């Protein structure tokens, strides 16, 4: 009984502390609001993603460096419904512009509508919605997801000489990047009659899962000339499995993202292809565009392209340097 009572009070005090901390934040934001500072809402898909973290940091960095701009960033935890809710809340708060990186581009339209109904400018970043939604938004910053898949597979096709057996390792099923990257891969395969997808399976973007999946594929005895993974983590997992089986030399491995980890594997020659997408440039592009729109300025072009870049052993050092720079910020 007594212990329970104490525990109850403990819980209640946790609640109070939490609310008070929230209160503190809100007061400061109110104070800033009075000085007519620009408030930018950022509806982000998931905080727990390394690559996106650099994009978030770039956006938040702007807040830190510009006294007259405040960023309010929220995490949708990979749930489109939650993201819509968060956009609605940002609208209620009357922010000056909203940056959205959609959980799912096909579910972004209601969010854009909610913001536009309140005349708040919308900037979509990193994941490109369909044309009719693009017509409604004020700006798009990033590239086309599908391009990373095409770029990756084209390089692999070139290295294979246009023929061979390909295994595709896909990410979390149903996720935007998984769908688009795989689609891009397959578009390229279609153009090469001598190339064939012999295996396709998901390792949920995770290294450990990829090791298991690759081991199973090796066990099956199929001849695999190239493993094309939806991200670098899985590519690294595949490399580990292939190495233990002594088959790495006969197999091409390709990933996407160009993470610092992956670059090491590119340097050592284990990872043959990766695709780099610049998170910092996208983040910077997004916040700069948003501030411009919030101030009522006109854009030269509503499509702000930050294209993909192919990484191979030849140009890897350039990206190593780039990451060093980003990590120091």
């Amino acid at each position: 009984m007594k212990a329970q009572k104490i525990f109850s009070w403990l819980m209640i005090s946790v609640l109070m502390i939490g609310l008070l901390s929230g209160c503190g934040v809100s007061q400061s934001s109110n104070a800033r609001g009075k000085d007519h500072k620009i408030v930018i809402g950022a509806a982000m898909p998931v905080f727990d993603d390394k690559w996106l973290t650099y994009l978030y940091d770039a956006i938040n960095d702007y807040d830190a460096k510009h006294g007259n701009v405040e960023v309010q960033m929220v995490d949708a935890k990979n749930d489109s419904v939650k993201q819509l809710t968060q956009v609605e809340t940002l609208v209620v708060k009357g922010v000056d512009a909203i940056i959205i990186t959609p959980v799912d581009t096909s579910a972004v339209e209601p969010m854009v509508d909610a913001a536009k109904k309140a005349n708040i400018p919308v900037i979509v970043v990193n994941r490109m919605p369909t044309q009719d939604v693009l017509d409604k938004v004020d700006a798009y910053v990033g590239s086309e997801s599908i391009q990373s898949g095409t770029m990756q597979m084209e390089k692999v096709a070139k290295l294979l000489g246009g023929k061979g057996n390909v295994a595709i390792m896909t990410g979390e099923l149903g996720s935007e990047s998984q769908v688009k990257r795989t689609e891009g891969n397959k578009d390229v395969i279609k153009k090469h009659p001598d190339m064939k997808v012999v295996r396709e399976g998901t390792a949920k973007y995770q290294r450990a899962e990829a090791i298991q999946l690759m081991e199973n594929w090796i066990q099956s005895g199929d001849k695999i000339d190239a493993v094309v993974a939806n991200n670098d983590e899985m590519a690294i997992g595949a490399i580990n499995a292939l190495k233990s089986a002594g088959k790495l030399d006969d197999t091409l491995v390709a990933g996407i993202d160009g993470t610092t980890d992956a670059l090491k594997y590119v340097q050592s020659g284990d990872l043959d292809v990766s695709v780099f997408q610049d998170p910092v440039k996208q983040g910077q592009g997004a916040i700069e565009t948003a501030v411009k729109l919030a101030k009522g300025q006109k854009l030269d072009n509503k499509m702000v392209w930050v294209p993909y870049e192919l990484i191979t052993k030849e140009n890897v050092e350039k990206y190593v340097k780039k990451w060093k720079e980003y990590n120091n910020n």
Partner: protein
Amino acid sequence: MESQETIAKKPTILSDRYQTGWKEKVSEIFSRYGIFIIFLGMVTLMSFLTPYFFNVLNLINVVRQVSFIGIVAMGVTFVIITKGIDLSSGSVIALISVVAADFAHPGEHSLFVPLAIGVGVGALTGLINGTITAKGMIPPFIATLGMMTAARGLALLYSDGRPIGNLSDSFLFIGAGEILGIPFPIIVFLVVGIISHLLLSNTKFGKYTYAIGGNEQAARICGINVDRHLILVYTYAGLLTAIAGLMLTARISVGQPSMGVMYELDAIAAAVIGGTSLTGGIGTIPGTMIGALIIGVLNNGLDLLNVSSYWQQILKGAIIVTAVLIDSRKNKKS
């Protein structure tokens, strides 16, 4: 409520020994209306903390956001009262979402078709959950865990892992439409709430639900067809899940196989915060609706206050545990 006055005035030896001080009265009121008081307290607190909270647009937002989980939670309440659990709701929402979306493209079928198919799929999954639980003698935790995994798989399979968009305007209305300025999901939430409440508190179906959760063996001896009733309860839960799934799909204008992850836990949390006891036989629909609103107000308020999403999770966890703690103390007392 009605039989409050129907006290059989028989003084007992025991009652002479009860002391009715104000302390007891306060704790009596608190244990009966505690959740409601907490809810009002939270609303008041939020109104003071942020100017954005207490305005019509935002309040409508909150209730609309809550509607979906709230409807699922009502079905889950029935299930939990029978001493069961339903872990499949989130995945079933995804399955319903992609299947219904597939039949909701403009100019293909009438609105009735996707709705009927969605409700049908929902009821069917509930029927399977209930049948496996009742006839297979498999604990509902495992049966619905199986459904949770399988339904997600089916949703991915059916949609080939892709979202299914391009939905007709009439379909979109059920998620995004308004009647007299009130969003359609809110209307459905209230209607489903009233129907479920009457069903649970005033019908044979409801009494049997409580009886099975209160003492399954005794229920059998009282002539209740426990197996059939359990199947019906899970089917009803599946049906409500379908209603929520259809409206969610229309709300975000796309059928998604990845929709509804962890919603089952939010629904269970709403029921539990609302006073439904996992030990069976205890729970009410108004309680669950308030439970869902508490979660909604918390989410919304914390977002308005710009509290980091990490803190939000900690607070939500604390609230759930506190609610159950109050609940367990209530049970211990009696």
